[in-house]
């Protein structure tokens, strides 16, 4: 079985059931059941028309469940076992599912899980494994999310910003067990870009492609983090970079800038530089200015300070940092880096230790500890 082909059919199959009169929550459950059966039985005997098989299997599961529910309640079944051929499913269904699964009323983690299941066609078990929680916990998270959006119609326009944020969260999760969440997020963003013509969708897709292109160089053989300046640029995927740059340029040409386009522009400028020393930091600072205007985010301010440190010298960067809340994530790491650039090795080592204490991942903590150790090995007068 081509599992990715199977997964691509899931949102359309949910759409068919909903059009036949099933509510979204029941339809989604039934399709999930059919998907799990397909994963079990298809390796032995693949149907000639996989989508028709899925629709039939899912509809049967839906009817069975509706029957047992209604007999429990002592009421008549309202659904027919053999439905009349419904209206042809439309591509719209899939777009509507993106909006519904990332509904603004849902907590991010629930929206992520529901999107991966109903739009991504992943099983609850795969999602649970990727996020390191028991399957029962993930099943409950999804079922609560569906209850929360039970009253929502599938045909209403949704909030694109939350859809993009959900896809970005999935991308940022990276690898989750056997599942390549970054690749999955790119697949979903690509699909979304074919369904809706908005520069920010393209901006997010470009951002993902440009970061994904550097993936092989971001970690060393033992899983250690390799900072951008030290990455082996020959490992960067030039095909993905080319695609990302192309998608971004087309989006920017429409003159409706948004935060994902601006972030992608920063990523493109990094990808553009043949060596770390040739990075166009002046332009990167300008993009951070745009990003700051768009978001007002303190995290952007911090990144901008580091970029200023590269463009105008470490003292200028440190001056910018001094105006920021030291409690910001990676504030100590940024200070450590700029102090090292300014030649203040002793202070930099102290700050790397402080940054390591504040790290929220083991890989990052080890990286920062290694930086402190490296500086402390330097001859005293270096």
């Amino acid at each position, binding site marked *: 079985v081509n599992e990715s082909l199977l997964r691509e059919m899931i949102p359309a199959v949910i759409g068919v059931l909903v059009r036949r009169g099933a509510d979204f929550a029941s339809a989604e459950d039934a399709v999930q059941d059919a998907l799990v059966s397909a994963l079990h039985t298809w390796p032995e005997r693949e149907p000639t028309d996989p989508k028709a098989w899925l629709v039939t299997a899912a509809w049967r599961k839906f009817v069975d469940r509706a029957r047992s529910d209604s007999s429990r309640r002592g009421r008549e079944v309202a659904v027919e076992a053999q439905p009349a051929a419904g209206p042809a499913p439309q591509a719209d269904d899939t777009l509507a599912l993106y909006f519904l699964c990332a509904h603004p009323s849902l*907590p*991010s*983690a*629930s929206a992520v899980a529901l999107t991966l299941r109903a739009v991504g066609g992943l099983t609850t078990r795969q999602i649970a494994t990727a*996020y*390191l*929680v*028991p399957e*029962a*916990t*993930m099943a*409950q*998270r*999804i079922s*609560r999310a569906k209850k929360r959006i039970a009253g929502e119609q599938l045909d209403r326009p949704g909030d694109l*910003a939350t859809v993009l*944020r959900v896809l*970005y*969260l999935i*991308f*940022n*999760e*990276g*690898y989750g067990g056997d599942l390549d969440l970054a690749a999955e997020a790119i697949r979903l963003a690509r699909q979304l870009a074919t369904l809706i013509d908005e520069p*920010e969708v393209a901006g997010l897709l470009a*951002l993902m492609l440009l970061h994904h292109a550097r*993936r092989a160089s971001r970690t060393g053989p033992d899983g250690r*983090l390799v900072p*951008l300046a030290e990455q082996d640029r020959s490992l960067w995927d030039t095909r993905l970079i080319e695609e990302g740059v192309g998608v971004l340029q087309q989006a*920017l040409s429409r*003159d*409706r*800038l*948004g*935060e994902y386009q*601006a*972030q992608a*522009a920063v990523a*493109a*400028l*990094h990808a*553009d530089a*043949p060596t770390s020393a040739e990075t*166009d930091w002046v332009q990167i600072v*300008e*993009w951070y*200015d*745009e990003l700051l*205007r*768009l*978001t*007002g*985010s303190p995290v952007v301010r911090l990144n901008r300070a580091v970029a200023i440190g590269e463009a105008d010298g470490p003292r200028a960067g440190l001056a910018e940092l001094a105006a920021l809340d030291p409690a910001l*994530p*990676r504030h100590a790491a940024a200070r450590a880096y700029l102090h090292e650039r300014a030649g203040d090795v002793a202070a930099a080592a102290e700050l790397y230790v402080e940054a390591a204490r504040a790290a929220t*991942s*083991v*890989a*990052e*903590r080890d990286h920062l500890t290694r930086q402190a150790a490296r500086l402390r090995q330097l001859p005293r007068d270096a």
Partner: protein
Amino acid sequence: MSAAMSRTATRFRPWGVSGQDGPHEAKENLVKYLLLKHYRGAPAPASGCAPMDQWTPAEIDAHIRYMKDFATRLEGTGEFVDAQGLSPDGMFVRYDGEGRPPVVDGPFPETKDLIAGWMVIDVESQDRALELAGELSAAPGQGGEPICEWLEVRPIMEAPATVTE
């Protein structure tokens, strides 16, 4: 290649901004927390409750049921990850050189800290982790009164985010 690159670069110059909606930070995923229950080593419980072996069987049952119900409820909210109890009979083990068996010592009755068990939860904020730890600490003890034992709450390290720069 580099000609194409520089052309790209000039076309990246920012221009007028037409305004878009609000700020978004990428880090909104759930964080896992470890709730640690200590046999010894935590501050004395606020209730001054006697050790469990001095309770009535019904009090012990009520306590255990509370813990189970708590875990079940968290499974229902999609926040439960794991819960385990630990036997107090631990041993200390260390390497003792090439070709020699490891040295095994203990249990040391005087060891200051002794972990009784843990629960791992997956929640959207530190406030939520503290709220849940507070509820867990309200498990009934003698006379059905909350034992108010101290629980240690520790964030678990995450995977590094893809986009950090």
